[in-house]
């Protein structure tokens, strides 16, 4: 992977020219049927969900969608989900579990929406519930970060058996601008913050927070999608061999080990 400044990857990840969630749905799957709504309040256009074929396998697909062009981006709320988006995702994941379908999550958001109504409808609770549900979901889940992995709003669809990142995707606890303004009271120092946060795909791989980095040489072309599709089919093939108990135990341990290497007095047996 070529050496590239973290802030440049942030800019690439945010670029309007990148394929969005719906592009991935159209190119990776066939016979996609969209399923709307959280059955509680509304349908969130920032998250698109449904059932489709991955090769010959029915899967549940849940994708964050930023939209193309100014008008569609506005109608998608720029890919910033509201609580009803996470609750729709939660509903569809439980449905997938009921019918034994694997789940593919496509993650691309600057973060969960910061709005008055989002707080009134329990943004924090919606994300927390997704995390609990995903950590014990008895069907395989693979999350692919295709652009921005913005904090808890991204993690809410990424508590998965495996998490893959596109080469120029970023995954961070806070935006570089937000970090810079807290740390140095100067949002223009975002480049330094981006470097310090270790938010690139390569960083995430080294921190063992993800399993794979997907090269972007043919991004958006048929060859790119077919290669990714083959990888998903192969990985679901092996994950599906595990019993639901073994699968959830494996997922628990995947997250259980994160952060344990860098603790003082960490000689305690886990």
């Amino acid at each position, binding site marked *: 992977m070529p050496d590239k400044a973290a802030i440049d990857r942030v800019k690439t990840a945010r670029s309007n020219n990148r394929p969005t969630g719906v592009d991935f749905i159209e190119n990776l799957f066939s016979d996609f049927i969209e399923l709307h709504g959280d059955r509680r309040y509304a349908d969130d256009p920032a998250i698109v969900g449904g059932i489709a074929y991955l090769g010959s396998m029915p899967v549940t697909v849940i994708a964050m969608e930023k939209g193309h062009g100014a008008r569609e981006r506005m109608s998608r709320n720029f890919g910033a989900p509201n609580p009803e988006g996470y609750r729709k995702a939660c509903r569809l994941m439980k449905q997938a579990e009921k019918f034994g379908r694997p789940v593919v999550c496509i993650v691309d958001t600057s973060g*969960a*929406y*910061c*709005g*008055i109504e*989002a*707080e*009134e*409808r*329990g*943004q*924090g*609770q919606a*994300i*927390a*519930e997704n*995390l*609990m549900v*995903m*950590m*014990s979901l008895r069907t395989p889940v693979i999350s692919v970060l295709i652009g921005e992995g913005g*904090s*808890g709003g991204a*993690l*809410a669809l*990424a*508590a998965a058996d495996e998490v893959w990142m596109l080469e120029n995707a970023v*995954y*961070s*606890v*806070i935006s570089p601008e*937000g*970090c810079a303004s*807290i*740390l140095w009271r100067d949002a223009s120092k975002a480049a*330094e913050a981006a470097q*310090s*946060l*270790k*938010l690139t795909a390569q*960083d*995430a791989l080294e*921190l063992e*927070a993800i399993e794979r980095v997907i090269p972007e040489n043919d991004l958006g072309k048929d060859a790119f999608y077919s290669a990714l599709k083959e990888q998903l089919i192969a990985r679901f093939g092996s994950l599906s061999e595990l019993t639901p108990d073994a699968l959830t135990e494996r*997922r*628990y341990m995947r*997250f*259980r080990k*994160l*952060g*344990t*290497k*860098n*603790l*003082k*007095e*960490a000689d*305690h047996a886990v």
Partner: protein
Amino acid sequence: MSFINFLNKPKNELESASKLPPVASDENEPSKACPECHRQIPLSQLWANCNCCRDCGYHFRMNARQRIHCFTDADSFKEFDPELQSEDFLAFPGYKKKLELTETVSGEKEAVTCGTALVRGLECCLFVMDPYFMMGSMGTAVGEKITRLFEYATRHRLPVVGFTVSGGARMQEGLLSLMQMAKTSGAVQRHSDAGLLYITVLTNPTTGGVTASFAMEGDIILAEPKATVGFAGARVIEQTTRKKLPQGFQTSEFMLEHGFVDAIAPRDKQRQIISTLLKMHSGGGQDAG
């Protein structure tokens, strides 16, 4: 996500007061002004009243040790992992120094204190977050301590009571801080699947990644009066939406009104409410095995 840059603030008098031997009230005794009713409260009186104003009931912040002292039966608290602490593994600007200073000033090694305790004779696992340790931010050590506590509680079939206070995930530990949200949620889920009770008490402030994980995952969610409780920071919301925030936005009462909190629990009622709840669930619950 933010944390209070507390090192620039005056040292917390309450903390010092708690370490001093009790003295008889006199005119020279240091006091603190109540931000609600503006009365000057002698520190010994404040301390004796669990850091609440006797006149108007205002809840002052309290550190983890004070809270454990006020909430649990005398000498019943047994601490887990007191030495566990985060390291500056990302070589993040200023973090190493901040950890060292925080440890010196707060006397704590991390932003959460965990263990077992008795509350009116009933045993529970307890975690208490500390606003004076980087505003209770969650890094890898906090995530690990909470996870270990829930694993212990699951093995020993004990309920968990947790007092949350947090600015969110600790940005100085980057992505691995974020991962603690999923890790702790997994541990809470396993405890829940075993049919065991988890009570959270949201205290001022509970925000960000802690709200979006174990704070909101309790079977029963209580909140202290007028605490700030929310996901996104109020200023960020104002900047994003360019709207004026409604009166009382992101308070415990707001969360109660919108259905995300079971009840407001004033500090002087917490022992009674929580011990009653613990007793009501002492039948063992349904073992999902």
